[in-house]
């Protein structure tokens, strides 16, 4: 082979690496919407935006293009909206420049579920705003009523103030009370009761009685209490909604990785088609760097395939014609032709999606602490109010109106303001605290579930370990020149072992000629006119050398003796201490891995783990978890791969490292940033503290009720007392929740 042929090969490979991305970008044009004013609009999802600088560089990358009118990134939703004038195919340029700026792009398909959530949050905020306005204005009048005696004020003025209060309060209750009324009616129609039932009854009764009192020139009207109640409850509801909003929607996100385009060969013609239209038997061309669109069999070509998505294995494996390939795995080596065996809906990846959907359903069965409290609370409070009415009316011989008034003050004063705030305030504050420590908590009740676990399942690769091989051969044992040559050659490859070698070697690199990659074997090049090779033992190593348990690559230069370099996926530095800390909390820690038994056991021994289950497929992992759950175990799963995703979704609660695949991150309840496994222990500790605070909050609001109920039943509760008690108990609960910042 001549030199020119080799270098052409390199250029060719390089070109292949870039083309598929551009081809794919043409698909975005079909998503462009055009307004009657000839303005085009495109929404895309951005991955990898973390900070203010990201916002600027993302918007900047698009704004610099000609014709762009607006580019705005919604940071929370990771959605970039672009508006521009001119040709629609500019979309391709936008996507390319965003990719060049280093961000991942995906087509944005508005999910109806997410739109509904956004609408719901807006609705709650609107109700909260209206209730806040009404509360402020009624309080203004109420202060006059509370502080002035009837003699100074006069009957007419008092009635006037009551009427204005009613005028503000009644429409507000009708408007802002809807979230509670709706859910109460829904619960009752299923024959159940929830927290919203006593709330609705209390608010409606308070308003009704106050209106009646106002009509009869009565002394007390509770419009202020009713609206204040609604305001505090809405604060709790909105916080709660915030804390729960990012519930995991892993399965749908995973399916979106299966959308896109593939190159097929149809009667000798090459076409780009949507992945969904591929049928079994279709011949597909997969370029280097591209994902395999469906499960299939290689019909032509040799290549290395990165199967980490399915197996969690970090090293690409060599594949030859006749070998099976799976959708979602990435072709790392040379272009190949594949015959499709399945449609896109029947791939292994789609099976995993189905497992995850199943897992999501079992998740929904969890009953939150607040809801369990409500189930107890409702009957107790309503019975008390009814008893108070019966007592005053039949036993004490009071007229029915004042007796009903007393019964409704019981309902008002016991109305679960503090109870409704007890959980969300503590959780929202805890989530904020954890965010500062690099822990992203997606839903508030994840903390509740995390505090209850008794078993921890750990994945090995990428969770217990760093997920990428590190060189373990000491540099003293290699000849420096050989190491330098090896690293120079390795810098031409994206193979994980080559990258590890480059990371290990910090010195200057040498210029090489005619670099060439032989798929599944290694790299070769010319240096000083002599052959330099870096690759497998069979290709350029010493086949008689003793075997080593670690991964190896060999360097051979000219006719010198070849030298072996060994690599291992290292444990995270704090893996052992984290596991010790978890065990100290009496948690059962289990290692689950798809890797070989020998490697898994060696690794577990280093980390101080006794229970190891190796050679597990995604389905086996899932069934292992189901078995544990059937035994009544509460499980935390820590994992990072697609093979872990169903287990992450099915576990009672799950944590993924920030280096995990998007799918795994989406499936997990908590994501930790940085390399410290210690975060898992930290998350558990914070969750336990939060749970303790929540219970204290419950205790506080129950103590408050125990004090307030006798007063209400005795008929001593005035509107002023109700307002003080309600805001007092709510503030107490909020203040207690803030202790999360000091407790260690």
């Amino acid at each position: 082979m001549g030199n020119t042929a080799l270098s052409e090969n390199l250029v060719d490979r390089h070109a292949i690496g870039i083309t598929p991305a551009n081809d794919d970008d043409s698909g975005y044009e079909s998503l462009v919407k055009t307004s009657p004013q000839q303005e085009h609009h495109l929404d895309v999802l951005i991955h990898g935006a973390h900070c203010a600088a990201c916002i600027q560089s993302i918007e900047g990358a698009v704004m610099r293009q000609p014709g762009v009118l607006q580019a705005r990134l919604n940071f929370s939703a990771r959605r970039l909206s672009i508006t521009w004038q001119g040709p629609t195919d500019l979309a391709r340029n936008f996507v390319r420049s965003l990719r060049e700026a280093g961000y991942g792009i995906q087509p944005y398909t508005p999910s109806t579920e997410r739109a509904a959530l956004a609408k719901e949050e807006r609705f709650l905020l609107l109700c909260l705003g209206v209730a806040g306005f009404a509360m402020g204005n009624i309080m203004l009048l109420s202060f006059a009523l509370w502080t002035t005696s009837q003699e100074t004020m006069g009957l007419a003025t008092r009635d006037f103030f009551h009427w204005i209060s009613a005028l503000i309060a009644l429409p507000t209750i009708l408007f802002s009370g809807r979230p509670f009324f709706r859910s109460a009616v829904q619960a009752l129609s299923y024959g159940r009761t929830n927290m919203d039932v006593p709330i609705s009854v209390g608010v409606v009764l308070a308003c009704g009685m106050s209106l009646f009192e106002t009509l009869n020139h009565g002394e007390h009207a509770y419009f202020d209490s009713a609206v204040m109640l609604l305001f505090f409850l809405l604060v709790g509801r909105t916080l709660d909604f915030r804390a729960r909003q990012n519930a995991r929607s892993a399965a749908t996100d995973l399916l979106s990785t299966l959308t896109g385009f593939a190159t097929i060969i149809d009667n000798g013609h090459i076409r780009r088609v949507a992945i969904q239209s591929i049928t079994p038997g279709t011949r597909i061309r997969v370029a280097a760097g591209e994902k395999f669109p469906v499960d299939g069999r290689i019909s032509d070509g040799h290549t290395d395939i990165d199967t980490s998505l399915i197996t969690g294995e970090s090293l690409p494996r060599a594949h030859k014609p006749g070998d099976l390939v799976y959708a979602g795995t990435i072709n790392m080596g040379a272009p190949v032709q594949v015959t499709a065996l399945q449609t896109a809906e029947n791939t292994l990846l789609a099976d995993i999606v189905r497992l995850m959907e199943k897992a999501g359903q079992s998740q929904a069965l969890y009953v939150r602490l607040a809801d369990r409290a409500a189930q107890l609370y409702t009957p107790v409070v309503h019975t008390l109010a009814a008893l108070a009415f019966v007592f005053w009316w039949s036993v004490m011989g009071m007229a029915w109106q004042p007796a009903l008034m007393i019964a409704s003050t019981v309902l008002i004063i016991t109305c679960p303001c503090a109870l409704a705030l007890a959980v969300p305030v503590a959780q929202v504050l805890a989530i904020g605290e954890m965010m500062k420590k690099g822990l992203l908590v997606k839903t508030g009740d994840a903390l509740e579930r995390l505090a209850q676990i008794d078993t921890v399942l750990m994945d090995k690769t990428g969770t217990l370990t760093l997920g990428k091989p590190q060189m373990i051969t000491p540099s003293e044992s290699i000849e420096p020149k050989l190491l330098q040559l090896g690293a120079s050659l390795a810098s031409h490859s994206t193979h994980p072992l080559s990258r590890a070698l480059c990371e290990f070697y910090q010195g200057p690199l040498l210029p090489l000629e005619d670099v060439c990659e032989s798929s599944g074997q290694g790299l070769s090049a010319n240096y000083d006119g002599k052959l330099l090779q870096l690759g497998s033992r069979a290709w350029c190593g010493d086949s008689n050398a003793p075997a080593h348990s670690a991964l190896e690559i060999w360097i051979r230069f000219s006719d010198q003796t070849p030298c072996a370099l060994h690599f291992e996926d290292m444990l995270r530095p704090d893996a052992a201490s984290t596991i010790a800390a978890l065990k100290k909390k009496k948690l059962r820690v289990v290692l689950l891995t798809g890797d070989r038994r020998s490697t898994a056991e060696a690794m577990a021994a280093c980390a101080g783990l006794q229970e190891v289950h190796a050679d597990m497929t995604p389905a086996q992992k899932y069934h292992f978890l189901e078995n544990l759950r059937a035994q009544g175990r509460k499980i935390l799963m820590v994992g990072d791969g697609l093979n872990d995703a169903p287990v992450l979704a099915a576990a009672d609660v799950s944590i993924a490292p920030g280096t995990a695949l998007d799918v795994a991150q989406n499936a997990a309840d908590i994501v930790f940033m940085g390399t410290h496994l210690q975060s898992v222990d930290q998350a558990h500790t914070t969750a336990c503290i939060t749970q303790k605070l929540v219970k204290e909050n419950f205790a506080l609001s129950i103590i408050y009720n125990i004090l307030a109920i006798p007063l209400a039943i005795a008929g001593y509760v005035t509107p002023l007392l109700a307002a003080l008690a309600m805001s007092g108990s709510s503030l107490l609960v909020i203040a207690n929740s803030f202790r999360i910042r000091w407790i260690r």
Partner: protein
Amino acid sequence: MSVLLFMIPLALLLGLVGLAAFIWSLKSGQYEDLEGAANRILLDDEARSDKDNAV
């Protein structure tokens, strides 16, 4: 007490103005990206202002 006839409507009116402003900000999507808004404080807006004005 005649001052009440003047002050109470005025108080209510001010409250309503506040409420209207809140509803406007909600409808115009200002609460949709609180995280992003918090980050945007840190951005220099000179670079983008001329284009924004052009819109």
